[in-house]
């Protein structure tokens, strides 16, 4: 954003989400405070994001317990199986 230009919606959204370098956010924040038009757009984006967050919160799933050990055991079983298949393959393809 140049000093004379207004920020885009994307830049305002980045500010809202705390993205981008801190110095850049400080410039944008100062502009939004001083410029009524951009301040209004920023507030509208803020409201849209808040509404979207609330609606998506409604769609939260019931909590389930996800355990790491069964995942690791499953991955290891596959590794053992693969090693066994390779071992058998080597036996059958070994030249006499």
């Amino acid at each position, binding site marked *: 954003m140049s000093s004379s230009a207004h920020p885009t*919606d*994307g830049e305002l959204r980045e500010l809202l989400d705390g993205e981008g370098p801190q110095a850049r956010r400080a410039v944008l924040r100062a502009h939004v405070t001083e410029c009524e038009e951009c301040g209004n757009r920023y507030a509208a984006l803020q409201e849209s994001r808040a509404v979207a967050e609330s*609606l*998506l919160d409604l*769609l939260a799933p019931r909590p389930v317990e996800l355990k790491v050990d069964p995942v690791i055991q499953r991955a290891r079983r596959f590794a053992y199986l693969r090693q066994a298949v390779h071992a058998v393959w080597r036996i059958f393809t070994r030249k006499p």
Partner: protein
Amino acid sequence: MIDGTFDQAFRRLFTERAASLYRYLFRLSGDVALSVEITQECFVRLYRSGRLPDAPAAWLVSTAHDLLHRRYLADEEPQSVEPVPTTDAAALAADLMASAHRALARLPERDRRLLLLQHEGYEYRDIAEIEQLAPGGVGTMLARVSDEFRRTYDELQRTPD
């Protein structure tokens, strides 16, 4: 061969990301069992690979998208998340949820994913990598998608099906 360092890093990643990936997949698919299965499968694949990718969160989501698409190609449409109400308050909540779900379903698939990824706290750089966007374009798309989602929801509230 899996070493102890990888095992520890994997366990830490699982603790940090598994629940978030599950929630993301549930909101995308509306199917608890499928979301659990794909979450676990993503981590199984990661463990089998024996190393963590440069951007693990983005890798997990990209792998989940791939698995989800294969499942949808093989199976029927995802289940509905609309609950069965048992009281007036529950009926009201169910109505709001149904509208939110329909509004989400009306968004193009990529817009839906963007909204849900941001909702789950993914950073712009991860979202850009997952969706193969320029990092500078993520904010612009999120601004547009949030407006669209809200507008669609408001329309559905005014004129329910």
